[in-house]
């Protein structure tokens, strides 16, 4: 068979995956990232639904394969646009869920709408498997390679066009797949192909963008929408990339005056500012500066300014440059030189170039250097040594802004990260980290615990002498020093705190009578916490605290996960009084998503099983076949996601990690699936089960080796240029992925040989399992780390062939199946 016949499979697979990536981007703009993730996760169950559908309607559809494929692909194209356009108009208000259960109805409506394109896209692929039971390896290869190209292509496309425009191209790709498939129709082929091709062209060039623009439907509770309600506020610039939508707003009548952590003793009005919103929220300010330091004197009265009181003419590293406020503070405080690191190139372009005149060209000064890099990677690879590493409220950017689910992890605030920072300090240097103060405290205590553990790991006997913590009413700043603070330092810190009405929650030599003076908390949680974390009862304190404040590590880099089950019922009871504000919704939404997905998956898998209960093969057969594909679906994505998350650290950017690792896994697994039949013939001596067993043994061996070797590989090679690191990543992934691509087509060929009816069903199970495992992998990583996730995946792979093996034997004894030859996947060219 010509490869061209399978090209539509590759195209629709690419379009479907691209649509997934794009929807997350679009709904991160309209809603918030975690809700976007939930909506799209559930919508992906369209894959499972299509399995059911094809299983039920297989015969008539496969008989009219080209027409059915073309129709389904065209419906993908239509619903990709129509269902999004409807879904974004659904008046769902995520913030109101606690108060108004009707919102859950709107959420369900969004699910139903968004399921449609995934259903039609997956139906095409399910049909292709059913139509070519003897070509399963090749169909799967086209599917995987298409998906890889789709993932990589969308990321590239999103650098070039706005998300709403990208949606047109994806819909057009669906129509292109339909047109191509239609050329295989028995009758009216040129008419059908021509009109579908025309539709693709029309969508690309004509469709009004306003139908799909996310802006007008953005939640009215996002910062950008609220800012634009103010008279005369207007958008002056907009940039879009896969890292986020940056919107620059000018508000001449009512200035922004964004200055978190500003002292109540300050009397100066902040300078004029432009506000930069990422995905309509999380503001960073571009502050107007004419060169007179006195105009930004107020910056010296924020908690983040503390280190400048004890450092003279420091060399400063700002991790998270944003609009440049910390650079301005450093210059005002007399910094000798400033290196500022920013992860988003468009942010750099805005702050340094587009609005250079606004910021008074501070980024072009000879002693200021702006670097495009991820904070941790820069710190771990720089050859420079600093007096101060300044980390402002950084987390709103980077990972979270990228809007891909696997990016919940954060390598900026782990124990290993802290050690990296301490390592690039000069002997008297200080790391300063500023965070929002939440009541009761979470991040700050976790940070304090992290710094304590990092200092101890560096051989510091009394970490308390290296730490200082101060707070205003809404921010807290932690200082971690390479050498112990001197009495002189502490006196200066006390002076700074007193004149700004800031409270010292920890400093060497501090006592209970010194704390909780100006910003009075119910109890001085931070001082008590600091004492406990520095003392022998650290473990017990962390255990007893109702939020998870155990330090994050590179193996479990979930700094922002504070959720603890045991506090849930108390907080839910208190939810209408403010308890809901203390819940960390990210975790809860992840769990909710898993429960929903598991329930829907069960329906999608059990329904056809029940409907087809008289089908040949017997219940035990079907159960074991089903479990086989479930195990594969879970294991494949467990490894893929754990690798994406692990490689963030190595590739220095969450986006690179997603693009390179995902595309690598899909493409090499596609190759593995294409050569699976040869592997079976050559190594498995013609037996699919033996072929699978040998493949999973290789997978287990490679996965185990990587678990051991990756950390040291990363450490040694981190300083290499990006291109080299990408090549190394692909080289590392290739052998593992090739073998991971084999068990699915080999198993499907094996099962399909008994009954064609299992094929779409297995495809549906695999789809559902993929959705479940994407959610489960993140949840598991939060609890048992990446090592645990990869270990579980390895066990699943090793167990999987046993599910097929017994059946094969029994089947062979009975010898009552269809055509024996069909049990073999034909070798492909």
């Amino acid at each position, binding site marked *: 068979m010509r490869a061209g016949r399978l090209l539509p499979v590759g195209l629709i697979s690419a379009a479907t995956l691209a649509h997934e990536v794009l929807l997350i981007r679009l709904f991160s703009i309209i809603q918030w990232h975690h809700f976007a993730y939930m909506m799209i996760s559930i919508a992906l169950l369209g894959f499972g639904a299509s399995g059911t559908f094809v299983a039920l309607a297989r015969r008539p559809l496969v008989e009219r394969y080209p027409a059915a494929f073309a129709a389904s692909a065209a419906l993908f194209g239509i619903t990709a646009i129509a269902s999004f356009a409807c879904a974004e108009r659904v008046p769902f*208000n995520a*913030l*109101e869920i*606690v*108060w*108004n*259960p*009707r919102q859950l109805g709107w959420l369900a409506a969004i699910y139903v709408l968004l399921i449609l394109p995934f259903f039609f896209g997956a139906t095409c692929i399910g049909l292709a498997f059913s139509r070519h039971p003897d070509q399963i390896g090749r169909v799967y290869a086209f599917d995987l390679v298409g998906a890889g190209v789709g993932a990589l292509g969308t990321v590239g496309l999103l650098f070039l066009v706005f998300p709403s425009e990208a949606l047109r191209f994806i819909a057009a790709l669906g129509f292109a797949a339909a047109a191509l498939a239609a050329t295989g129709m028995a009758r009216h082929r040129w008419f059908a192909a021509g009109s579908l091709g025309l539709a693709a062209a029309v969508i690309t060039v004509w469709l009004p963008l306003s139908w799909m623009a996310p802006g007008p439907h953005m939640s*009215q*509770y*996002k910062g950008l*929408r*609220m800012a634009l*309600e*103010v*008279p005369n506020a207007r958008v002056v610039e907009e940039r879009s990339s896969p890292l986020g939508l940056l919107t620059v707003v000018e508000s001449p*009548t*009512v*200035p922004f*005056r*964004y*200055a*978190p952590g*500003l002292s*109540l003793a*300050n*009397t*100066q*009005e902040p300078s004029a500012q432009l506000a930069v919103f990422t995905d309509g929220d999380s503001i960073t300010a571009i502050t107007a500066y004419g060169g007179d330091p006195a105009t930004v004197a107020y910056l010296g009265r924020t908690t983040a300014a503390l280190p400048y009181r004890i450092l003279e003419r420091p060399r400063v590293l700002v991790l998270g440059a944003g609009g440049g406020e910390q650079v301005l503070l450093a210059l005002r405080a007399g910094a000798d030189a400033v290196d500022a690191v920013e992860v988003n190139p468009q942010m750099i372009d805005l702050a340094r170039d587009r609005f250079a005149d606004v910021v008074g060209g501070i980024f072009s000064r000879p002693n200021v250097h702006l670097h495009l890099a991820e904070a941790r990677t820069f710190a771990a690879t720089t050859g420079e040594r600093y007096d101060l590493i300044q980390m402002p409220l950084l987390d709103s950017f980077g990972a979270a802004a990228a809007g891909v689910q696997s990016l919940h992890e954060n390598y900026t605030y782990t124990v290993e990260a802290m050690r990296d920072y301490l390592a690039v300090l000069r002997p008297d240097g200080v790391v300063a980290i500023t965070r929002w103060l*939440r*009541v*009761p405290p979470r991040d700050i205590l976790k940070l304090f615990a992290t710094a304590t553990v990092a200092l101890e790991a560096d051989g510091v006997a009394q970490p308390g002498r290296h730490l200082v913590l101060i707070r205003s*009413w*809404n921010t807290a700043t932690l200082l971690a020093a390479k050498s112990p603070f001197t009495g002189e330092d502490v006196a200066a810190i006390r002076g700074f705190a007193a004149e700004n*009405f800031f409270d010292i929650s920890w400093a060497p030599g501090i006592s209970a009578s010194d704390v909780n*003076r*100006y*910003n*009075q*908390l*119910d*109890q001085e949680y931070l001082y008590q916490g600091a004492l406990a974390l520095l003392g022998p009862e650290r473990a017990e*304190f962390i255990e*007893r*605290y*109702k939020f998870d404040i155990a330090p994050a590590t590179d193996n479990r880099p979930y700094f922002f996960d504070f959720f603890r*089950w*045991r506090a*849930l*019922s108390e*907080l*839910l009871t*208190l939810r*209408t*009084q*403010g*308890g*809901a*504000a*203390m819940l960390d919704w990210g975790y809860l939404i992840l769990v909710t998503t898993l429960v929903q997905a598991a329930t829907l998956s069960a329906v999608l898998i059990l329904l056809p099983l029940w409907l087809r209960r008289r089908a040949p093969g017997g219940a035990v057969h079907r159960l074991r076949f089903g479990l086989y594909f479930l195990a594969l679906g879970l294991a494949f994505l467990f490894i893929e996601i754990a690798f994406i998350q692990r490689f963030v650290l190595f590739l220095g950017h969450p986006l690179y990690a997603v693009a390179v690792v995902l595309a690598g896994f899909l493409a090499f697994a596609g190759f593995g699936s294409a050569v699976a039949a040869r592997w079976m013939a050559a190594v498995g001596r013609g037996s699919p089960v033996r072929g699978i067993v040998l493949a999973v043994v290789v997978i287990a061996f490679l996965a185990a080796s990587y678990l051991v070797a990756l950390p040291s590989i990363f450490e040694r090679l981190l300083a290499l240029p990006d291109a080299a690191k990408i090549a190394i990543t692909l080289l590392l992934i290739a052998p593992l992925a090739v073998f991971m691509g084999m068990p699915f087509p080999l198993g499907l060929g094996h099962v399909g040989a008994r009954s064609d009816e299992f094929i779409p069903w297995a495809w549906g199970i695999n789809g559902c399992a993929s959705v479940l495992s994407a959610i489960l992998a993140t949840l598991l990583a939060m609890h048992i780390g990446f090592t645990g996730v990869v270990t579980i995946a390895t066990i699943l792979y090793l167990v999987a062939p046993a599910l097929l093996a017994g059946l094969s034997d029994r089947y062979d004894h009975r010898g009552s199946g269809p055509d024996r030859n069909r049990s073999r996947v034909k070798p492909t060219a």
Partner: protein
Amino acid sequence: MRRLAQCQALLAVVLASAAAMIPTSAPAQDRFAERAAMIETIKGHARSAPSAVEGQGIDPAVLKTMGKMPRHFFVPEEQRGAAYRDRPLPIGYGQTISQPFIVALMTDLINIGPGDSVLEIGTGSGYQAAVLSPLAAKVYSIEIIPELGERAAARLAELRFNNVEVKVDDGYYGWPAHAPFDGIVVTAAASHIPPPLVEQLAKGGRMVVPVGGPFATQFLMLVEKRMDGSITTRQLLPVSFVPLRGGGAR
């Protein structure tokens, strides 16, 4: 066992949510019973969070005022059925009318007397200003969004809250012409407290700022200016919650 408790808690939420979906259809004018129930809910919340009300319970005068105030006039037409529920409601433009308990708490915390003058930043629906009106001599309220400010001003005038003055302006500078104020309520979100507001707070005066998102008040910040002019702030949780398990029991 703990899992079971969690399941029960979740179930309770689902059931409570289902019950809340039943619409109320009381006529607009006659909603005394709903108001009385609202006041009981506020009292219940206050009892369970003694530290937020400084151990005193909410001032009966505040509860009396809120017990008379026709809250349903201050919410959009489509929200009127839910006006007395124990929840914040959307009023458009990304703004909300606060949960009754939070309104009671804020009014109670600024501790004003009949001769006092109060400044409000962020008029919104005008409900908070209306609640302050009978308790103070004069209420000045500033709203940044013209549509909201004009609508609230008209509503307050119509309901004859004659001691309330509303203007559409930038709240950052306060209202110097009428300063100092014995109490200031800042309902508009801000990254910091504007210095002019601190300046315009009378000695012995109190300012209250709810901190959190549009539908989730995390804590209330109370700013107090002592007689010597020094400033202290306090963070008050609207709930009684001890972060340490087994430590500092209620």
